[in-house]
C-alpha cells in the first residue's frame, strides 16, 4: 500500500470525509500557492492536472485552464519540478491524458512522478482494459493508479475496476464532462453505493461537485469528493490563493458537519 492509499484509508478510518481539490498545473506563475491554500483549507489530497492539448473528458472550464497553462509554456517537466520543491502534508495525485503518460514510456513517466513526490495518478482516457502496462509501471514506482467508474459501467466491469484501482476509486457522478452544475447529479449515488459494496477502497465522487451542499450530499453515500471546475472557474476569474482557501474551507465545513 502506497502513500496515497494509506492516507485515504486512514482518513476514512478516522471518520473524516475526504476532500480532494483540483488545480491545473502551471495555470499561473505562482500556481503552487493554490496547493498551500488547499492544504490550509483542509484538503486530504490534492489533484494536479498536467495540461494536455486535447482534453476530451473535460468541460469548458478545465479546457480553458489547460489552454491557458499551455500557452504560458507549461510542460509536465516544469510542473513536476515545481512540485519537487514542495513538501506537502497531503498526497499529490496527478491527472492527465494517456498521450502524455506514454510519450516517453509509462515507466519513465511514473519514475518522474515519484521523483517529484507525487503518489497517485489518474488517466481518464485509459480505461481498465488498456491499463495493464501502466499499472505495472505505476506499482513499480510506488504510484497509486486511480481508476474511474461511470454510471454506464456494468456490474462486471465495476468489479474489475474496483479490483484494479489503487488509492481510491473515482466515481464519475454523471454521463458527461467535468464542469460546474447547479445540482449534484443523481446518477452518482447508485454508482458510489455499488462500488462500496464491491470494494473496501475509499470511493470518491467527482464531476459536478460545485458547492458545499453538493459536497455534503455526496459525502452521505461516498467517502469523499473531488472538486475541480468550481475551483478552476475562480482561478480563471483571477481568484487568489486566499480566495480559493476560503472557498474550499466552506466545503470542508460542510463535509465535517456530515461526519459529525
Amino acid at each position, binding site marked *: 500500500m502506497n502513500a496515497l492509499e494509506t492516507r485515504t484509508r486512514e482518513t476514512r478510518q478516522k471518520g473524516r470525509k475526504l476532500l480532494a481539490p483540483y488545480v491545473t498545473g502551471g495555470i499561473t506563475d505562482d500556481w503552487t500557492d493554490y496547493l498551500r491554500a488547499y492544504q490550509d483549507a483542509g484538503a486530504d489530497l490534492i489533484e494536479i492536472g498536467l495540461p494536455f*492539448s*486535447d482534453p476530451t473528458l473535460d468541460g*469548458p472550464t478545465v479546457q480553458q485552464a489547460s489552454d491557458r497553462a499551455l500557452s504560458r509554456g507549461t510542460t509536465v517537466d516544469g510542473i513536476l519540478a515545481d512540485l519537487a520543491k514542495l513538501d506537502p502534508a497531503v498526497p499529490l495525485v496527478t491527472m492527465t491524458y494517456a498521450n*502524455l503518460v*506514454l510519450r516517453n514510456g509509462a515507466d519513465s513517466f511514473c519514475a518522474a512522478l515519484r521523483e517529484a513526490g507525487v503518489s497517485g495518478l489518474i488517466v*481518464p482516457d485509459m480505461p481498465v482494459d*488498456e491499463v495493464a502496462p501502466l499499472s505495472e509501471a505505476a506499482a513499480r514506482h510506488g504510484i497509486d493508479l486511480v481508476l474511474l467508474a461511470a454510471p454506464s*459501467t456494468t456490474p462486471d466491469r465495476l468489479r474489475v475496476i474496483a479490483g484494479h484501482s489503487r488509492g481510491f476509486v473515482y466515481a464519475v457522478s454523471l*454521463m*458527461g464532462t467535468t464542469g460546474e452544475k447547479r445540482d449534484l447529479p443523481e446518477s452518482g449515488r447508485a454508482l458510489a453505493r455499488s462500488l462500496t459494496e464491491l470494494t473496501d477502497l475509499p470511493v470518491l465522487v467527482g464531476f459536478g461537485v460545485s458547492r458545499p451542499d453538493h459536497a455534503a450530499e455526496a459525502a452521505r453515500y461516498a467517502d469523499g469528493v473531488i472538486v475541480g471546475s468550481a475551483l478552476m472557474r475562480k482561478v480563471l476569474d483571477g481568484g487568489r490563493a486566499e480566495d480559493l482557501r476560503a472557498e474550499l474551507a466552506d466545503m470542508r465545513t460542510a463535509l465535517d458537519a456530515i461526519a459529525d
Partner: protein
Amino acid sequence: GRFGEYGGRFVPESLIAACEEVEHAFRDAWADPLFHGQLDRLLAVYAGRPTALTPAWRLSAELGITLLLKREDLAHTGSHKINNVLGQALLAKRMGKQRLIAETGAGQHGVATATAAALLGMSATVFMGERDIERQELNVFRMRMLGAEVVPVGSGSRTLKDACSEALRHWVSSVEDGYYCLGSVMGPHPYPWLVREFQRVIGDEARTQCATELRTATPDFVVACVGGGSNAAGTFAGFVDTPARLIGVEPEGGAAINSGLPGILHGFRTKVLQDEHGQISEAHSIAAGLDYPGVGPEHAYLADLGRAEYFTVSDAEVLDAVRRLAKAEGILCALESAHAVAWVLRAVEDGEIPAGSTVLLTLSGRGDKDMHTLMELS
C-alpha cells in the same frame, strides 16, 4: 479493433458501454444478410453505386502507364463519405438511436451525415471548428439545408481535431439516444474496423472492375490519399491479398505516418503529429479534409509491416496535379484526391512507377468545394 500496437479503445470509462454497444450491434448487423440487403440497396439506388472506373486515357498515354480512376467523386454528396454514413446511419437506426453525432473538418463528412440523417428521418448534430465554419460556409449552409444542427467549436485550434474532441464529449452526455457517426477509420474500437468495412465497397468494386478492365486482372499499384485514411483503407481492403503495391499519400504538412510518433488521440493509439512534450500539433495542408494530426491505426500498422507504403506530396505538387487532371481528363477532383494524383505524376517521373505499369487510383471526391481555394491561389 487492434492493429499490432495501434488501435484500441482509449476512451473515458463513460464511453466504454457505448463503444461496446456499437461493436455488438455492428457484429450482429454485419452478419445479417438483411442488413447487407438494406445497405446495398441504398448504395445502389440512392448513392449511385457502383461508381465508375474510368481509364485516364490521355494521362495514361502521356505517362506511359495504364491509369484507372475509381470515381468516388461521382457518389452522392460528392465523395466516398456517403458509403460510411449510410452504413452507420442504418446501424444507428437498427440500434434504436434517433440522432447522429458527427465531427467535420472541411464539411464533407458533415454534409454526408446530414444527408443520411435526412434520408432516414433522423436528426443530426455536427460539430465543426469555428475556423472551419468560416472557411467552409457553403458546406455549413448545405448541412443546415439538410436539416442538421451545426455546432461551432471554439476551443483549442478551432479546427477538426477540436471538433473531434467536442463530438466525443457530447457523445458522453447523450449515449442514450445519440449515435456517434465517425467520419474516418479512426476513433476507439470498433470504429476503425467498422468504417473500413463500410468503405471496402470501394476496393471490392474496383477489384471486380479491374478484372474486366485489365489484362493482368489486378493493378501493379493501388494509390489513395490518406488523412484519417478511410478511402485508402476501403480501397486497400479490396487488394490486400493481391501482389499490388499499396500506396497511401499524405500531405507534407499533415503526414502522421511519415512525421508522427506513436501516441494516443481521440480514443486510439496511432502515429500522431506532436511536439517533444506530447502536445498534439496542428496539421497544415491545402486540403482541409487531410488536416488531421493522426491517422487511422490500420495505416500505421500497414506501414510498420511494410504491406502498404506511405509517401508525402507538397501543396504545390497537389495544385499542379489538380490542373493536369482537369485539362487531360476533364475531371476536377478534390484537393484531397489530388494528393494521390500528384504522387503518381512524380513516381512515374522518378521511376518508382515503371513504364507499362497498371495503376488504380481512388479519386475520393470532387473538387467543386475547392474552387474558391483554387481561385484565390490563381
